[in-house]
């Protein structure tokens, strides 16, 4: 175990901790263990790219180059002078968004670690020490993320905007961290009050989708907001602005540096100072309640049985072969329940939602609504299929991969129906709903004329699904451990698949150039679909194809 630098810093406060009844040595060893364990965890932001660093002893500060990158992107915002209100609201908006979502998606597992109860509380550790260790652990994490994220802009503003600005910014960042921490904890408390632990974990998954979408869209938005900023919009206080916390944090800049004396700014500035402090007090008061609610996490909520009939029906209409139907239902429920699968796949869903709209969004922003109607931009919907690569790849992994002995036990003559059922389940469960939503928005944007094109896209995506499946070596669903994912590098593969997707859109475009082309293409795709599904998942036992071998 490494001795962490943070802990050496903390050692200086030893006396202070002892004075408030904290057993410092015990707290220090708890923190050391916690930080060591963090170093062995992969953060969500990097989950997709993490490679063979498993054995490397890390600190929680190790992975944060990505936050540094986002931090550097904040610098342009710092260059503006004059309109502090707009500038700083934006800065705090971005930073608060990033930190909150990171805190929820990455650190929830730490905040909600149930093992703590059995392992730590059964030892002679007093409650104050335990709570202090927990709080400091979260604070270390929070501050290290905040520092990497705001560091570049902090240094920049010291030179560009002066010392007063720098100090104000630094103090407000600390206040903001308190604000975020307490708000997140209260959010958890509320969720746990009304729902069970499973629901909370679901919500954490949804936050991950939001994180992905938010970063992508947010960046687009920030770039475009520059245009407004240069027009120097004046700030007109309105009642609802009192509800938006980044605005509170922006107000002191306007007041102290911009020299505005308006009561509105004074009130907003006071809010920025008082609310975080009040929340901290509330948090300390509520900690015991929080601990109590944590127990609920371990209680097993009822897993909904309600849609079993729907899955049954879906498996019947999509699969003729009973074995295939069986694996359709199996894959369906695994995708629904497997926590790690969702964790890995949901960010990809986020991208699949965002990509088809980014470029269109750009055009709409420039006000060319009419130009879009007649264009071929709708082909961007092909990017909605990018999630298939991730889904198909991830279907082979499972947290409970050891359960795969069942495949070896049951007498199955052929693996083709397994793969076919699995792929169909993935398409029906994840791709089709996404495609339906995107198609509806596209229809609204482009008009009914694109209906035949959308049908073509759907068939093309079905072919793409099979190609995705074929591009990876076949492994039975949910039969490998996630750690194995890090050892195999499929980057080249996924780039290839991305180019293929663009190529498919290109071919589609060519067929739109002449009348009736779309229908000819559609016919070709239907035939191609029949063919590719048949050769990939051969019916007869003897065919080699993909039905070759069980994994060792």
């Amino acid at each position, binding site marked *: 175990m490494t001795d962490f630098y943070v802990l050496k810093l903390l050692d200086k406060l030893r006396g202070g901790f002892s004075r408030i009844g904290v057993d410092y040595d*015990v707290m220090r*060893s708890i923190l050391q263990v916690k930080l060591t*364990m963090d170093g*062995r965890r992969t953060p969500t932001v990097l989950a997709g790219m993490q490679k063979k660093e498993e054995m490397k002893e890390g600190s929680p500060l190790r992975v944060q180059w990505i936050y540094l990158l986002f931090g550097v992107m904040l610098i342009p915002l710092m260059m503006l002078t004059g309109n502090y209100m707009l500038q700083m609201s934006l800065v705090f908006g971005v930073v608060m968004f990033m930190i909150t979502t990171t805190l929820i998606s990455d650190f929830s597992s730490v905040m909600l670690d149930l*093992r703590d109860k*059995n*392992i730590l*509380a059964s030892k*002679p550790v007093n409650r104050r020490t335990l709570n202090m260790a927990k709080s400091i652990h979260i604070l270390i994490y929070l501050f290290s993320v905040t520092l990497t994220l705001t560091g570049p802009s902090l240094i920049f503003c010291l030179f560009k905007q002066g010392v007063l600005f720098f100090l104000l910014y630094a103090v407000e960042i600390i206040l903001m961290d308190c604000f975020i921490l307490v708000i997140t904890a209260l959010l958890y408390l509320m969720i746990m009050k009304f729902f069970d632990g499973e629901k909370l974990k679901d919500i954490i998954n949804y936050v991950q989708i939001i994180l992905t979408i938010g970063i992508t869209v947010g960046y687009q938005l920030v770039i475009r907001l520059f245009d407004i900023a240069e027009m120097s919009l004046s700030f007109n206080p309105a009642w609802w602005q009192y509800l938006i916390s980044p605005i509170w944090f922006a107000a002191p800049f306007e007041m102290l540096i911009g020299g505005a004396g308006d009561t509105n700014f004074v009130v907003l500035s006071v809010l920025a100072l008082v609310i975080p402090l009040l929340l901290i007090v509330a948090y300390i008061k509520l900690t015991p309640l929080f601990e109590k609610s944590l127990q609920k996490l371990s209680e097993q909520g009822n897993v909904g049985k309600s849609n079993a009939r729907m899955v049954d029906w879906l498996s019947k209409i999509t699969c003729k072969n009973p074995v295939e139907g069986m694996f359709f239902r199996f894959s369906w429920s695994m995708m629904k329940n497997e926590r790690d699968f969702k964790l890995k796949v949901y960010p990809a869903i986020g991208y699949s939602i965002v990509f088809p709209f980014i470029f269109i969004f750009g055009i709409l922003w420039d006000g060319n609504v009419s130009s879009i109607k007649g264009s071929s931009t709708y082909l961007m919907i092909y990017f909605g299929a990018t999630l298939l690569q991730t889904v198909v790849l991830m279907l082979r992994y499972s947290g409970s991969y050891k359960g795969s002995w069942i495949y070896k036990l049951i007498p199955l003559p052929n693996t083709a129906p397994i793969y076919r059922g699995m792929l169909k389940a993935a398409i029906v469960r994840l791709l089709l709903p996404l495609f339906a939503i995107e198609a509806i928005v596209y229809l609204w944007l482009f008009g009914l004329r694109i209906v035949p094109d959308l049908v073509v896209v759907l068939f093309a995506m079905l072919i793409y699904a099979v190609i995705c499946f074929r591009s990876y070596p076949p492994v039975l669903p949910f039969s490998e451990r996630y750690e194995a994912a890090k050892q195999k590098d499929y980057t080249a593969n996924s780039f290839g698949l991305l180019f293929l997707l663009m190529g498919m859109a290109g071919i589609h475009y060519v067929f739109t150039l002449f009348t009736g082309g779309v229908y000819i293409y559609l016919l070709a795709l239907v035939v191609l679909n029949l063919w590719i599904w048949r050769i990939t998942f051969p019916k007869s036992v003897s065919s080699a194809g993909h039905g070759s071998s069980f994994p060792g």
Partner: protein
Amino acid sequence: MGLADDPVIAISGLWMNYTDRMVLRGIDLKVYKGQIIGYIGPNGAGKSTTVKIMLGLVEGYNGKVEIFGRDIADGDVSYKKRIGYVPEVAELYDSLTAREYLTFVGELYGMKRSDVDYKAGKLMDLLGLEKAYDSRIATFSKGMKQKVLLISSMLHDPDILFLDEPLSGLDANSVMVVKEIFASLAARGKTIFYSSHIMDVVEKISSRIVLIDGGDIVADGSFAELQEKGREGSLEDIFNQLTGFDKYRDIAGEFVAVMQEVPSHD
């Protein structure tokens, strides 16, 4: 069996309810030095809850729990220094290595790191885990994890051991070693509070058996005493009689019948 001195554990009128049901209905129990208590009962009888209350893991109970003569509700957690605990589910920080985990636990008990390291290393050797000391616990088999848990509960030489299914996953040889450890600890005046579903083991190693059912103690005494009270047969039989469970033949018969049923519908 009780020695002349004061009980190490004294529970009186212990009631506990979770949101929807009563788990414990007035448990009274005194435990003395050197006893090996087999704490048995059907699933959901309240065994784990009793242990968790004594460890301070569960709060909100009614009644009085005294350990080493002190009420545990007085807010002083130092009594836990003299207690070791092996939880029911093998819960440990498995991304740590055995060395890291065990030294950490030792430190929580207020021991010096180097002392714990030395002791833990030796104990690991003795249980045949010398090669695994620096491997991550996540890679361990069930039995190995159980051994780590057992070591972590005894590192600090506690006076009371609370063990929940402590032999689960251990091979026959290790079971013999561990049972022998328990016996010699009891001979040295330690108290072992042991819950298990494996009646043969409980029958053999316990000096006193406490059977709880529906949140209440239904039998208390040594195996010989339980037999004397007109309960014939093995502990398993006594267990069945006392928990009012006599339908096992019917259930098994029905189970097999359902198993072999030919579905009438498609």
